[in-house]
């Protein structure tokens, strides 16, 4: 489908695709196998200026928005979504700074992320606080000119690899969600260490670690926006902006799987003809392609809505993440089916895509939470109508 991208967006898409095809695809299996962090590819993305596409020009970015970021994530995900999520997580990590940071914080940190010189990461999840953020146990206590952080964040994407972390911690337990604040923590701060790297089912190129804070003292200026209690809202507004990115990741994975399935079906000969001539298989491919395009359309439409200046887009963000990730799961499972026994083997990329797809239904809010968000918004909308 033609989404009438601007010349600049098309350029971003072409460049990201070229990097995906030439640099990422040949190494996707290697990173999947070893779980090594793809620093060489991060450097290529940085040199290509791709880390700055969605960041404002005044902070060294290219002035694009959510759609530009989605385009890059989608293209990279076609080849390896582990690489794509490492790229995207840097955007996630600096997003709280972008939405609620002070001018000094933006100048200092966003410029570094935009140039790709440093990666960022976002730390909210804990062992006992996933979807229920208010159950958070990490604390921050003001002591003179410093906050003292204690606690452990779990499953943090880019953990250990990133230099800049936006971390949620409780400053006032009594206030519940409103007592959560956000802090910018730099790697190397005394008292800030990392747990072991997780051994994951998919997106294995990406690094997932614990962030451990043990009397970690950070300067008061690193309180996001200079205000306590905005951590929860920062998280929600961050996720609203970044969920389309997860949708884009899912769309990319699904596209990669569909491409592999269509190609294979034309090459594979059984009963004297290519299996693409069998209607049973054709119907599968047709459904995969249609669902995928619907998911992409929803992701792009949401991204454009956000970039267009919409005030509230929680519902749409949740919808596109939900629909695209469910689609990716379905399409990748079907792609493995199309490839049959070969699809189950690691020589072909689709089994990896199937493993990679699963996480898109889970992180940045499980799809159950997405449905909850959507339903809440529906009910709110209905209640506010005076008829």
């Amino acid at each position: 489908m033609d989404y009438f991208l601007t010349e600049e967006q098309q350029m971003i898409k072409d460049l990201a695709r070229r990097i995906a095809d030439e640099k990422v695809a040949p190494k996707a299996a290697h990173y999947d196998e070893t779980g090594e962090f793809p620093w060489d590819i991060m450097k290529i993305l940085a040199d290509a200026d791709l880390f700055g596409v969605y960041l404002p020009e005044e902070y060294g970015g290219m002035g694009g928005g959510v759609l530009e970021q989605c385009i890059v994530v989608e293209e990279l995900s076609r080849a390896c979504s582990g690489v794509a999520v490492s790229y995207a997580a840097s955007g996630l990590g600096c997003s709280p700074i972008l939405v609620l940071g002070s001018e000094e914080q933006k100048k200092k940190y966003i410029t570094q992320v935009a140039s790709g010189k440093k990666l960022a990461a976002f730390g909210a999840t804990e062992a006992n606080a996933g979807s229920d953020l208010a159950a958070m146990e990490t604390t921050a206590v003001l002591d003179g000119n410093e906050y003292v952080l204690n606690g452990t964040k779990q499953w943090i994407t880019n953990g250990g690899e990133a230099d800049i972390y936006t971390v949620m911690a409780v400053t006032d337990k009594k206030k519940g969600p409103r007592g959560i604040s956000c802090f910018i923590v730099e790697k190397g701060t005394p008292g800030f260490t990392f747990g072991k790297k997780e051994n994951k089912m998919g997106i294995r190129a990406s690094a997932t670690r614990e962030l451990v804070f043990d009397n970690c003292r950070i300067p008061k200026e690193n309180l996001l926006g200079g205000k306590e209690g905005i951590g929860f809202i920062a998280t929600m507004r961050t996720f609203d902006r970044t969920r389309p990115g997860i949708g884009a990741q899912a769309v990319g994975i699904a596209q990669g799987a569909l491409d592999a399935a269509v190609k294979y079906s034309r090459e594979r000969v059984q009963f004297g003809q290519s299996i693409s001539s069998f209607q049973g298989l054709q119907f599968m491919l047709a459904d995969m392609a249609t669902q995928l395009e619907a998911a992409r359309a929803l992701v792009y439409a949401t991204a454009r809505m956000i970039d267009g200046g919409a005030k509230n887009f929680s519902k749409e963000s949740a919808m596109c993440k939900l629909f695209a990730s469910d689609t990716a799961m379905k399409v990748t499972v079907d792609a493995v089916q199309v490839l049959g026994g070969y699809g189950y083997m690691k020589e072909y990329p689709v089994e990896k895509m199937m493993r990679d797809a699963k996480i898109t239904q889970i992180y940045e809010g499980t799809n159950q939470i997405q449905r909850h968000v959507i339903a809440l918004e529906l009910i709110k909308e209905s209640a506010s109508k005076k008829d």
Partner: protein
Amino acid sequence: MKIVVCVKQVPDTTEVKINPETNTLIREGVASILNPFDMYAVEEAIRIKEKVGGTVIVLSMGPPQVAEQLKETIAMGADEAILVSDRAFAGSDTLATSYALSKAIEKIADVNLVICGKQAIDGDTAQVGPEIAEKIGIPHLTYVKKIEAISETEITLERMNEDGYERVQMPLPGLITVVKEINEPRLPSLKGMMRSKKAEIPIWSAADIDADPAKCGLNGSPTWVKRIFIPEIKCQGEIFSGEPEEQVKFLVNALVGRKIVV
């Protein structure tokens, strides 16, 4: 430091196939690309510029549509690109090509270093670089795999040969041709691509570079193509059959039995 990189537009010969039935070249879908070996030259020039400062000017000769493709090198980081294009250059062999390019380099003026790829994948001659150097009257070195040190007046490098390599020092201005061991060409950057979109590629005619018509194109080319043909592959072989074990035994007997392998 002023560096000129010579590049050529070529058909992507890795995509060229022969239709075995008609014994002709299949060209469908064969794209025109910048000669891959030249990309190492562009990359090396940009690296030198990043290290010691200066300007990188990409120079090519070919039909007008090459101008658009030269923008790729600007997207990578070259400062400007110039195309030498004129009907008068059609039919140029390596001598006439090097004449035209040498005239263009003289027009650019005050060039410290000229870098060429080791050869173009369509002709594989590897002659134009050294011939340019001779025409301008500067020294050249070929098959360079590493630049150890460079200043505006001198270069120290490693050049490959069949036995290994030599470390050689050469005064500048001079010309080098580079092999793929020297670097890994970068991809364009977004900012580079945007700059290249706006870039104007000057097209220089034979008159612009003050070229003598007698030395250009067909007239300036001592070599002529007499015939072009598809190579024949000789077919003489014996393909074994049977179980793998048997085939292996046949082969070992054939080679050892006839004292070919001893």
